[in-house]
C-alpha cells in the first residue's frame, strides 16, 4: 500500500491558534496549535497514522513536517486542514491570479507519514526557511 495521500489543503483560523498567537508566537500554545494538520478519520486510517503522529505535507511550493490530528467533526475525506501560521506557510503558494491574494485555500498537497522526523519549532523553522531568526 502506497503510504501517500493526495489531498486538498485548506488553511484557516482555529480558536486555539488565535489564543496561541496572542500569547506569543514563541509560545508553546502557538506551536501546539499551529504545527498540526487535521485529517478525516478515514484518511488517517489509510495513511496508517494516529493522533499525534508526525506527517510530511508537501506542495508544489515546499514541504513541512507537522503533527497529525483527527478533526473533531470529521472533515470530508481527501480534505485536510492546517491552522494558518508559519508551518502552513511553507506549503502555501505564491499564485495570486493577479489579485494580491496568494494560495491559502483549496490547493493540492501530498501527505506521507514521517514517523522519525521532528516538528521544527518556530525558531528552527525560520532558520531553515530564511536562514535567520531572533538568535
Amino acid at each position, binding site marked *: 500500500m502506497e503510504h501517500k495521500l493526495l489531498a486538498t489543503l485548506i488553511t484557516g483560523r482555529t480558536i486555539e491558534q488565535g489564543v496561541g498567537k496572542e500569547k506569543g*508566537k514563541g509560545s508553546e500554545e502557538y506551536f501546539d496549535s499551529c504545527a498540526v494538520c487535521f485529517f478525516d478519520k478515514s484518511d488517517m486510517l489509510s495513511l496508517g497514522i494516529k493522533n499525534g503522529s508526525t506527517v510530511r505535507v508537501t506542495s508544489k511550493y515546499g514541504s513541512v513536517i507537522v503533527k497529525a490530528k483527527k478533526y473533531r467533526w470529521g472533515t470530508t475525506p481527501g480534505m485536510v486542514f492546517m491552522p494558518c501560521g508559519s508551518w502552513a*506557510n511553507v506549503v502555501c503558494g505564491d499564485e495570486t491570479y493577479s489579485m*494580491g491574494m496568494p494560495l491559502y485555500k483549496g490547493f493540492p498537497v501530498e501527505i506521507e507519514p514521517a514517523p522519525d522526523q521532528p516538528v521544527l519549532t518556530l525558531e528552527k523553522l525560520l532558520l531553515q526557511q530564511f536562514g535567520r*531568526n531572533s538568535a
Partner: protein
Amino acid sequence: MSKIINNVVCPICGCLCDDLEVTVENNEIVKMKNGCAVCDAKMVHGYKSEERILKPLIRKDGKLIPVSMDEAIKKAAQILADAKYPLLFGWSSTVGEAQRIGVELAEELGSALDNCCSVCHGPSVMATQEIGIPAATLGQTRHRADLIVYWACNPWASHPRHVERYTAFTSGRFESSEWKNYMQRLKAASGRKKMEMASKRIARVEPPIKPKVCFTGPPPQMLEQKPGRKMIVVDVRKTMTAEIADYFLQIEPNRDYEVIEALRCLVTDQEIDVDKVGGIPIDTLRDVADAMMNCEFGVIYFGLGMTQSLGRFRNIEIAIALARDLNRKTKFVISPMRGHFNVTGANNVFAWQTGYPFAIDFSQGYPQFNPGENTAVDLLKRGDNDATLIIAADPGAHFPSVIMQNMMKHPLITINPDMNAISRLGDVVFPAQWCGIEYAGTAYRMDTVPITLKKVVEAPPGVLTDEELLSRILKEVRAIKIKRGEPVGQTEITPTHPDTTKPSPTHKTPAKPKQTKKTKERLK
C-alpha cells in the same frame, strides 16, 4: 492597589467588543471579564509575555543586537531613504492616527503602501468596487435580522463573540435571542458535561448542540417552521459555528461561486437543469433560497473561505449580487467578517488621504492603485521592492514562505510590540507599545464604526507608540533628503493629541465648560 476599568475595547478582531471589564493591579492587567478566550490570551497574558521587545535591535553579523532608539531610527531612516522603492506593509493592528503618518511617510518615500487587507478581504474590497455592497452596521442585524447566513467563515474561531453580540444569540428591538432555545435543546440532546467543556474553552460563548441537519439530509423544513431567528452556515468543512447553526450546508472546496450563482437563479425564478451544484442538491438550495426570500431582514456574513479560494473577488461579487437581488423581495444585507481589529481603519484612512483603500503606489509622486500590481504579495513575488517596513502585522506568520524568501533579500525594518515571526527576521527591529492597552487611538469596527481604543496600563519605559516611531522616522528621512538637496514635504507631523488652539473669538466660549456627563472624558 487594584482598579477596575470598564468599557475597555478589545484590540484583536474586527468585532471590537467594547464592554470589557479589566482589572489592573500595579500597572498590570490581572483580570479581564466579558471577553473571549483570544481576548483573555492577549489582554491578560500575551501583552506582557516574555516575547515582548523592550529595546530596539539591529542585526549585525546575523545576530540581533540591542541598540539605542536614536541609532535604530537613524538606521531605519537610512535604509528607507537609500531604497529606490521600499514597501510599507501592515497597518491593520495599529490605530488610525499612526496610519495617517504612514501615508505621509509613504508619500515622502515614493514607496508602495499596502495593508493586510490585500491578503484577507482585499478581494472583498475589489468586489465592492465592482458592484457596490448593501451593508448595514452590526446593530441593524442585532435588532432586525431573522435570517443569518455565515458563508465560508467560522466566527467561533475568528470572531468568537460575533454570534453572541451581534447576531443569533443577542436580543434586539424586533428580534430576540435564540440562546435560550439552544440551551433547552442542548439540555435535551446532550449532557451538561459537554456543555461545561465547551464553555471552558470559550468564555461566554454559548455551548454547542448536536448537529441537526447535514448537507445530505432531508430538505430543511425546519427553516420555514422554526420561529424566531434562523442561522445557516455554509462552509467546506464542519466547524463549531456549523454546530450551533440551524442548518449547515457543506459545499465542495472552490465551489462557492457556483452555489451562490445557483441561489441567485432560484431567487430570480430561473430553472436550473442540474441535480447538484457544488455537492448540494438543488432541492436543498431551493429551500435555502426560499428561506432567504421569506425572511424579514436577512444578512450574509462572509469570510476568508470566499476571498481565499478559487475565484477570489468574483466569489464576493456574486454573493453581493445575490444580496442585492434579494433586496427586491425583502431586506437583505451582506458584510465581510473583517479580521484584524483595525484593518477596516487602514482601508478608510488610506482612502480618505489618497482615494484608494490598499495597494497604493507613490512612486510617481501621486497615489496609484492597482491590486495585483501594487499588492504586497505580487510586489514581493516579482521582487520589485528593495527594502521593506512592516508595522503592526506579522507576514512572517501569514505570508507564504516563497514570498517571504523574496522579502528577506532586502533590508527589513519591523515595528511590532512583541517578538513575532517577522520581528525575528528583521534587520532593524523596533519595539512598540500595544495600542488599546498602553495607548489610546481610533480603530474601525468591521462595519466601519469608529471606536476609541483605551489606554489601561503604562507602557514599559523607552518604548514608543507607533505614531511617535513613524513621526521620528519620517523626520529623519526628511533630514537625510534635505542633506542630499532633495525636495521634501512640509514637516507637518501631527502630534497624537492635537492641542485645541484658542477658539475663534467668533463665538463666545464660556469660561468653564459645563461639566455634566455630557462632556466626556478626554482620551487618557
